């Protein structure tokens, strides 16, 4: 008897769950209906509209502007669902090149990754559409936050008790750019101990000065990086450090200006000679090179975002529409507001293989 009651209980729970899910399904369909407007044969049309998914892989530092782009794009194209996946730039590229994942749009925090890792096999062109710069972000809670400025930031970071963070150079462009900025600071402030004190002595990094004055920073395998965790907080992606700053886990971290701006952090703007923001100083930046554990060498260069439509895109026409939105005036406005000044017109490689409607936006 008791067994029977138990069975009824289980069945009724299952029925309730099924009803709830079925109900949710209906609500969802109705919402779609309203979006799309009048439908004659609704069921069939809904399936097609639900199937239109635009997959966008992008760098973590592009999350906020891309969220706004997504909202705008979905408003213009009802029935299209933009699905964004934020990750480190190199990781985003690898998802396409190694895991064979399908993406309609790829946007990288370092445009150079597209020509070096994707062209010609996985993509045919890129457009470099916006800039950024490295800053030192902090909050009012940060130790010595009332003293820090562009002239003494490296002195403050040196002080005992101050914790700072940066991302893993092997995984994330923001990480190797941190090495470049700190190394360039040695030239700019005429203090050849800055990089040693802040990073070299506290991690497994190796720095060598070559004959022509170029400095090469060699990054060991990630597990051998072993930072002094009482001073440095290292994470795979720069965005992960934002929450650490908010929690007071670190006092300062190297980050893109855009991210600092979007999170409402205070930040020290570094001199343009070292902050990788200006094409003017491109020659100075190139005096620092970082060799990652996989042997790839990156040379210091201004921070420029790049976008492409991979060859495996399932919806290349929609993807072109999305990139067009990104490059035209409404997109530019979004990037201005988020601290990532757009490059107008965007510069590109492989312009002739770009979708025609995009060619007007690039040179």
């Amino acid at each position, binding site marked *: 008897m008791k067994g029977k009651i138990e069975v009824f209980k289980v069945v009724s729970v299952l029925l309730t769950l099924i009803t709830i899910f079925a109900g949710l399904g209906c609500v969802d369909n109705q919402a779609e209906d309203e979006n799309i407007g009048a439908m004659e044969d609704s069921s069939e049309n809904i399936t097609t509209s639900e199937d239109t998914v635009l997959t966008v892989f992008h760098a973590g530092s592009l999350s906020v502007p891309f969220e706004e782009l997504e909202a705008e794009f979905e408003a213009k194209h009802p029935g299209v669902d933009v699905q964004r996946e934020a990750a*480190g730039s190199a990781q985003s590229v*690898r998802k396409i090149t190694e895991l064979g994942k399908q993406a309609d749009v790829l946007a990288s925090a370092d445009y150079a990754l597209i020509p070096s890792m994707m062209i010609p096999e996985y993509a045919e062109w890129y457009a470099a559409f916006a800039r950024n710069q490295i800053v030192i972000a902090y909050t009012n809670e940060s130790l010595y936050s009332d003293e820090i400025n562009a002239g003494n930031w490296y002195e403050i970071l040196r002080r005992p008790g101050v914790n700072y963070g940066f991302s*893993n150079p092997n995984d994330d462009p923001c990480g190797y750019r941190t090495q470049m900025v700190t190394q360039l600071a040695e030239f700019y402030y005429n203090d050849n101990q800055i990089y040693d004190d802040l990073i070299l002595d506290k991690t497994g990094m190796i720095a060598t000065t070559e004959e022509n004055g170029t400095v090469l920073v060699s990054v060991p395998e990630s*597990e051998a990086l072993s930072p002094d*965790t009482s001073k440095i907080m290292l994470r*795979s992606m720069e965005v992960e450090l934002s*929450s650490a700053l908010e*929690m007071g886990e670190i006092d300062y971290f190297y980050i893109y200006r855009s991210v600092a701006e979007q999170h409402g952090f205070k930040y020290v703007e570094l001199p343009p000679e070292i902050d990788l923001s200006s094409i003017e100083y491109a020659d100075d930046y190139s005096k620092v090179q970082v060799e990652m554990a*996989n042997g790839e060498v990156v040379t210091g260069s201004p921070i420029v975002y790049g976008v492409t439509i991979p060859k495996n895109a399932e919806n290349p026409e929609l993807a072109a529409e999305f990139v067009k939105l990104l490059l035209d005036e409404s997109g530019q406005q979004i990037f201005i507001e988020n601290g990532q000044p757009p490059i107008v017109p965007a510069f590109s490689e492989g312009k002739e293989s770009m979708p025609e409607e995009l060619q007007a936006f690039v040179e």
Partner: protein
Amino acid sequence: MNATIQKIRRIEPLTFIFSLILIILFLFIFLTLSNMIFGQILENFSGLMKAAGNRSVMGAIFLSLYAGFIATLLALFLGAPAGYILARFDFPGKRLVESIIDVPVVVPHTVAGIALLTVFGSRGLIGEPLASYIQFRDALPGIVVAMLFVSLPYLANSAREGFKSVDPRLENAARSLGAPLWKAFFFVTLPLSARHLLIGAVMTWARAISEFGAVVIIAYYPMIGPTLIYDRFISYGLSASRPIAVLLILVTLSIFLVIRILSAGWSIYDRD
């Protein structure tokens, strides 16, 4: 005699169908893993050997096992008494308590990691008063805490079920013969539910070893196995991360196999 032979020869349809389903379930897990393991062994055995000979790789795998083991011990220490109370007593809000204990299984592990860092970070509720003694962030205590959080429900639940399966009348009998409750618990209830506890502990350990999402938020360094696998994947790609993944699977698989074989005899205790 005749009847038993017939029984063995004739397979019930239900048994047949359930066996088929078991095969499907087994193949689903086996094919997924064996494809990776044998793929690695056949295509790139030297890569596997190289990973096995790499000190930092073995160090990371060992750290996973070690931190998971500490987490399991702590989970036993916390989960067994809690399970006993939940099995033996009814109190207002018991359902709520049980549901909350299950939450770590449901919560996305990144969220668990963020929550843990908020509490155990150097300015957190627990982390701050302890800051001068223990560093949780990017240190072994942080790894253990993260593993404990996500795996504790497995132990608490199986301990509760284990204690429930022991008839309270056995405890009462021991007590009526003059044993205090602690004696009845340690000499009657605990041995009878030992197998449940062991299975719970193995599940807890397994869950702890496989944990990545929560650990990576609170402690990226020192690197545990799953963090290293993820990191190799990001910086080198699939081919570099696979040998470590295979190694981790092989090491844990052999440990669990040994535990299961050793504990097989224990089932005698279970009933009768």
